[in-house]
Every structure is written in structure tokens, then in C-alpha cells.
């Protein structure tokens, strides 16, 4: 079974971003960039499927700037076999990303496609579901467990009311949630080996895909700030404040 993985280069999760003064976006100059945490979980899951001899080949794809090769090399160091970068220098919305991924799916014909459920920059939680619609495949979003059973994938999903398990015909799309696994770190020898693994660079033009969007960001502002309140000394004082000052109990 061939597995296709999608990973995104995003601002590191430890960075607290600041809005640019011209409100055109957030300031990403000299900010640490990393693989989106949910994509790291996707990589780990694919590698585990290969270790269990369920996956025969892992292809990792990223849509983004040339610098996203760094994240693709990380995935190769963790166990992916080859990489594809669809180079796009401006930020793309989910529809364009889903269309580009669909073009790669058409070329690669994977049986299972694993993505993160959400990227921590745009916080959209859309791409996997949109790719599933474009491919006409079933989708198992917010996965906390996956099992391959013949021509189906059994996905346990983290939902508002608890956990839901569904069976999906392959090929299918899975998006990862936090509890799916704990990603490993790459070893130094594997990082060295990853430098020699194949990395193909494509462009939206070469794939014949329009990257236009129906959404336009007009401005980006800082949220209303919330200052620290007061420190109190005792539980009795806390109750008094909640009853008489805040009036919430």
C-alpha cells in the first residue's frame, strides 16, 4: 500500500506571533519555522504503518515556498521514501492546496493519504476534507487511532461527544489529531541519509492548477488584549470577589 503524506511549513508552535503595524499580516521575519505539529503526527503514523509492513512506500508532499524542502527533508529523515514539493511562494488558501494535492494524488495513486487536521497558522481545519471531496474518497478526520483491515481503514475519531469509529473504503483520507501517536525524533545517520533521498520540485503551472481563491484577507489585527488582574491571598477572599465584585457566582 502506497501512503501519501502532506506536510506544511509553519511558524514554530512555541512562537507567539505579532501583527505587523500595517495590518497586512503577522510578522514572520526571523521567526523559527517548523513542521506543523499535526503533520509530524501524520509522518509518524505513516512510518509506523511501514514498520508494520502495511505501507510499502511513503511519499511526502508539501505545498509551499522553496524553504519547505527543510520540512520535507525532516520527513525523509523520519522514514518517508521520497518527497515532492509543489513550489508556491505566496500563501495559498485551502481550496488551492486541496487542488494541488489532488493533482499529486492523481499522479501517485496512493491508497491512503494522511494529513494533519489543522495547521497552527491559519487554523482552518479544511484541507483534508476538501481533498476528500475533490477525490471522491471517504474521510476519517481528527483520528486518534487507525487500523488497516483488508480494503478498509478503521478510524477512531476524536469528536465533541467522545470517540467515534468509522470504516472507510480505501483509498481514503485520514487527518490526524493529537492522540494518534507521539512523534519520534530523527537520528543523525537518518538525517544524513535523507539528504540523498529523491526530492522532486513541481509548480502549480506545471500541474495545470489555478491557485486562485474566493477569499481575500483584508486586514489582520491584534486581538483585544486582556491584562493581568489582581493576586489574592485566600480562598475566602476569592469567593468574596467572585460574589460581590465579579458577580459570577
Amino acid at each position, binding site marked *: 500500500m502506497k501512503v501519501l503524506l502532506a506536510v506544511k511549513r509553519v511558524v514554530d508552535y512555541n512562537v507567539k506571533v505579532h501583527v505587523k503595524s500595517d495590518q497586512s499580516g503577522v510578522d514572520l521575519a526571523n521567526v523559527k519555522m517548523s513542521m506543523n505539529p499535526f503533520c509530524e503526527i501524520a509522518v509518524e503514523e505513516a512510518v509506523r504503518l511501514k514498520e508494520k509492513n502495511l505501507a510499502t512506500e511513503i511519499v511526502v508532499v508539501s505545498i509551499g515556498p522553496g524553504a519547505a524542502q527543510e520540512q520535507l527533508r525532516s520527513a525523509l529523515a523520519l522514514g518517508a521514501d521520497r518527497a515532492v514539493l509543489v513550489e508556491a511562494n505566496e500563501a495559498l488558501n485551502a481550496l488551492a492546496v486541496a487542488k494541488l494535492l489532488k493533482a499529486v494524488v492523481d499522479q501517485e495513486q496512493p491508497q491512503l493519504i494522511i494529513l494533519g487536521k489543522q495547521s497552527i497558522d491559519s487554523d482552518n*481545519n479544511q484541507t483534508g476534507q476538501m481533498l476528500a471531496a475533490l477525490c471522491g474518497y471517504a474521510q476519517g478526520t481528527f483520528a486518534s487511532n487507525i487500523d488497516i483491515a483488508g480494503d478498509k481503514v478503521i478510524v477512531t475519531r*476524536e469528536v465533541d461527544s467522545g470517540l467515534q*469509529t468509522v470504516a472507510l473504503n480505501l483509498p481514503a483520507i485520514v487527518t490526524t489529531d493529537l492522540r494518534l501517536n507521539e512523534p519520534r525524533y530523527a537520528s543523525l545517520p537518518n538525517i544524513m541519509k535523507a539528504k540523498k533521498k529523491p526530492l522532486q520540485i513541481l509548480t502549480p503551472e506545471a500541474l495545470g492548477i489555478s491557485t486562485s481563491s*474566493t477569499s481575500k*484577507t483584508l486586514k489582520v489585527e491584534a486581538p483585544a488584549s486582556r491584562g493581568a488582574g489582581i493576586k489574592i491571598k485566600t480562598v475566602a477572599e476569592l469567593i468574596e470577589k467572585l460574589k460581590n465584585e465579579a458577580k459570577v457566582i
Partner: protein
Amino acid sequence: MAILVIAEHALSALVPATLNTVAAAKKIGGDIHVLVAGLNVGAVSAAAAKVAGVAKVLVADNSAYAHQLPENVAPLIADLIIDQHAIYSHVLAPATSNGKNILPRVAALFDVDPISEIIAVESADTFKRPIYAGNAIATVQSSAALKVISVRSTGFDPVAAEGGAATVEIIATVHDAGKSSFVGEELARSDRPELAAARIVVSGGRGMQNGDNFKLLYSLADKLGASVGASRAAVDAGFAPNDMQVGQTGKIVAPQLYIAAGISGAIQHLAGMKDSKVIVAINKDEEAPIFQVADYGLVADLFEAIPELAALV
């Protein structure tokens, strides 16, 4: 112009987030139609028809929709939009796990970029939504003929659950893609209020040390009529189930009172609760970042403070 709102329901009842979503639809303006898709949804449809401001309820009652499988529900929604001769300018759903699962699939079928988790309506085509874990707010304009939008409940006060008298229309078409099936579920059972809609939320973090200690929070919550939440660290450590996680990628809450016990206050957690009206932080580490957003900070051992609080309220 009309707006189609996808109802969220569970256990034969309308989930409150539906009322916040109808509120967002009212701000956009236009006739509001509500789709109730599921199996044996008579009671839910009747409740939806009573919601203030709803003109029509569309009911798709079939086993194909029983578990909100997106492979079946998304084509149903797409069909309604096409069948109604393009009267729909917007499709809205609450940003619940079902809404997030289904809506982008609908949007892709219409070649549209959906807009996730709006917190404000600026005009019929312009919306505000948080990005970067709520550290920035984007104003987004959609040029799509059909705007596909999920609504963050905390951004909109709910409409009244009573007072409406909508017409009810049965949708007989059945979409069963045959690509997916429901296997089972483990539902969280709780007599406490729903986390996303609770007036008071008591949350625990890594400082709780183990799952058993969450009993302290349950006791306090029961005294206050509160719901109980958890930080990602507490859920990852197995102290609490995933449906209790509050944060950027978990549940977003904005109760009147949020009590954070043993939670350090990572930006990902703050993203899920910083719009609460009053925040109380109880933590023995006075440097914990949670104190930077807390209205009332108590530097104390939670194992003493929480039982004392429960005894005194």
C-alpha cells in the same frame, strides 16, 4: 436570498451551538432555513421549528444520515443548494466536530474556499476569524456566490430557543455514498452542563497529577453547576478524556467564569478560554503565564485550595 444553517443535534436534542449559528445568520440577513439531517429526528425538527427567526426547517430523516457521515451528508447539502434554485447565498454550521468535518467537503464541491470559525459578521461577505491560536484576528472577504462558513459559538449570543413557528419540509432524497460506515462510539456521559455552553467551567491541567485527582474538580463543579475541562497536557497524560480538552484545537469556551487549576497557560490553551468573562487561576507557580490573563490569581496549592473552595461556595 436565504441562508441554510446546518443543525447540530445529539441524543434527540438540538445542541445549543445551533442557536449561536442562527444568531450569526441573522446578522448576515435573509430568510433562515435549518437543515436537520439524521435518523429519527422528529423531536429535533420540532425544536428547530420553534427557534426564533427560523423560516423553514428541512428534515432529512434517514439511516444514511444517522451518524453524520460526511460522505453522505455533504452531497445532501449540495443537492439542497442546487435544488432550491440557488436561493442560498450562505451555508452556515456550528464549528463543532461535525460542522468542521462536513462543511469543507461541501465547499470543495462548489469550488469555494470555506471560512472557518468566524467570531464576527462585518457584512454579508466579510467576517472576522482568529488565526495563529487567537494571537491575530483576520478580516476575510469572500467573493464566492455561495459562502460556506463555520461559526464559533463564543462570538455570538444565542437566539431564543422558543418563539419561532417555522414551516417544516421533508427532504426525501437519500444520499448513501457507500464509501463509509459507522462502527461504534464511546460517548462521554455526564450530568454536568455541556462544556461549550456552560456558564461556569472548572479546568485542570498537568498540576492535577493524575486522573483520580480530577474528582476534586468534579466536586467543585457540581457545587457550582459547572462543566469540567482540561488542558492538552492533562488529556495527553490520560487524566481526562479528549472531549474535555479546551484549547486551540480542542473546544473553545467563553463562560461567565473559568477556573483554571494547575494549568500553566500555554498559548494553545489560552486560545480556547481567553474570551471568558472572568478568569480565575489557581497555581502554586506564581510565574505561570496563566496569571497574565487571570482576573483573580491565587498562588496556592490546588489540593488545598480546591476542596476549600468547594466547601465554601
